[in-house]
């Protein structure tokens, strides 16, 4: 199962403040972390925060700038679920597969979305609009079952509601509205 998590974009460790001139992003990241011991994972968080994933060229460049062998970088990137090696879609739909969600039917929700988007879990749609993945617990178990879309949590989903979820994502509206509309119909 792909367990990369999409909330990267909202983690605010990145953003080296106001680089003087538009410098190369990767060099800025390397500069920021190079002198701090054991900071490779933090540098990779920054990198993925900017680019959405860790492209091979960028990893090579970061390695050279930080004086870390490429093998070490890949060792880390492939070990941790959070890091992605391929570009994800525009909307990353992460269905929580933690225990609470599992018991409340996250499996069915995932299947529904697979059918709706016509992709398998861990894949992106051919137009790169959507990326569907099952992820580890997002820590909002009170709202199970849930999914996060680009870091935004959609909770208390109905396992048969995948259709609504896609619509809400497109309109950038909260899921609550969908519940009401469904009740009205």
């Amino acid at each position, binding site marked *: 199962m792909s367990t990369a998590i999409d909330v990267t974009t909202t983690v605010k460790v990145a953003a080296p403040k106001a680089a003087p001139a538009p410098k190369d992003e990767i060099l800025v990241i390397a500069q920021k972390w190079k002198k701090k011991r054991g900071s490779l*994972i933090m540098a990779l968080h920054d990198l993925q925060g900017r680019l959405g994933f860790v492209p091979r060229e960028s990893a090579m460049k970061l390695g050279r700038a930080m004086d870390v062998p490429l093998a070490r970088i890949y060792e880390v990137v492939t070990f941790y679920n959070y890091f992605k090696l391929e570009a994800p879609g525009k909307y990353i739909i992460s269905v929580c597969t933690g225990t609470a969600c599992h018991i409340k039917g996250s499996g069915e929700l995932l299947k529904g979305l697979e059918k709706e988007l016509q992709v398998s879990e861990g894949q992106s749609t051919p137009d790169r609009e959507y990326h569907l993945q099952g992820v580890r617990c997002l820590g909002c178990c009170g709202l199970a079952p849930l999914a996060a879309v680009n870091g935004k949590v959609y909770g208390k989903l109905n396992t048969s509601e995948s259709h609504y979820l896609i619509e809400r994502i497109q309109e950038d509206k909260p899921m609550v509205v969908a519940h009401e509309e469904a009740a009205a119909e």
Partner: protein
Amino acid sequence: MKPEELEIKAAAEKAKQQAFDVRLTCCSSTGCQSSGAAQIITNLKAELKAKQLDTKVQVTGTGCMGLCSKGPLIRMTAKNQKDVLFSDIKPETAVTVVDEVVAPIVGGATIERPTGALETHFLDLDEPFFAMQDRVVLENNGRSDPEKLEEYLAHGGYQGLRRALTMSAEEICKELLDSGLRGRGGAGFPTGLKWDLTRKVQSDVKYVICNGDEGDPGAFMDRSVLEGDPHAVIEGMLIAARAMNATNGIFYIRAEYPLAVERIEKALRQARTAGLVGKNVLDSGWGFDFEVRLGAGAFVCGEETALIASVEGKRGTPRPRPPFPAVKGLWNQPTCVNNVETLANVSRILLRGAAWFASKGTEKSKGTKVFALTGKIKNNGLVEVPMGITLRQIVETIGGGTGTERKIKAIQTGGPSGGMIPEHQFDTPVSYEHLQQLGSMMGSGGLIVIDDKDSVIELARFYLDFCVDESCGKCAPCRIGGTQILKMLDRIEDGTGTLEDVRKIRKVAKAMQKASLCALGQTAPNPILSALKHFESEFTERLQPVATAKA
């Protein structure tokens, strides 16, 4: 900041809050944020301003109040009346809260039980869900704004640190030992003892690490504490550092918890500005500072040696102990890793004293425990209960049962490392020893309820699959053993398993428990073993008759 200033600031903040007739605190944790908490706060403020009530009514965010399934929640504190809680508030309902309750109260009315549109949103704080809890770690959740240092100070914040600064390292360790506090990450090692071991190791550099890598799927205690009371954890870290003469502090937090990271970073900035963290802590001449490091999605990093490897920027794989981190940890220096909830408890213990803490709980398990109550349960959410309370009280009285016509079949505590406890054993008191006797464990606080429709084989398979996926692969018993049990379990599930499979599962499980390098492998067979112990018939029903299997 000088120590005396703590009181001055606290008094100023209290006076400020008391100047308002009504105070509305709206949950602003991840769960409620996703249901529009920020918009609710904005709407409340706008409506109050429009009605010219903004000088009489204060609106702030607050930490998780527990009943996540009914969120977003708003707590109303008003003069001369009981606190009231409103549930399921939507951004649009915010206006109604102002119109129907807040405005009349400012006008002099007393409304302890609203009627009209808000009647269905009303939650009585005398209900068992709230009344039976004992909030120590979560005491500020619901009443103070986690993003404001002054609000933490108003509730005695950093007074525990102030006291610790007047004590010797040895005295602080003794205080913790006397309190009886045990590690809340799950294993339950006495915190005072752990600190004392680290204290005794001589070294110029020593690290204290806060383990905020809450990996148990189905648990969110640590997230709620980090988000709801970040200063309490920082204060606990400072006290820990003082007790061990540590030199550097590190917060290791899951990257999947962006809001928790944000709150801790913000709290650290505030504490630095106020002189509570940095070169001269509370004008004592002692300096201490922190770094924040993010996890990257690996369950095994909850294990302390794996966590340390991850902080060093490496793959998070555990290593054999001894040497224990207390002797050789981060960068080969003495290191002490503490869980978030443990550290939050530390602040309260130093504030109120060891005897106060030791008066709660059972003989060997003191204090309270925070549980994330989820699964097939009516009152889904976060609860803090005194140790010694029975499982039945948690599940049935506080949790309200399944809330459907189905019956509760079992609970699982301790997540993937714990075990299932069948309904007939629910009268067991909650303590480290009792839960272990039942073949489960306290764990970090996940408590999942399953009903009579759910399959224990399926749940055991879910947890095992998780452990197999999360195994770092370094040691053979965990890497190979887990996969083998999973295969046998799959056979049993699809009806092709035999009695031999059950026998082998037990055998492999024993090998994993004895020979795995770290707790992940050692405890991975627990769910399946407990399922076999309590629900063996569910397995045997699905087995092939021996004769057929042989043929």
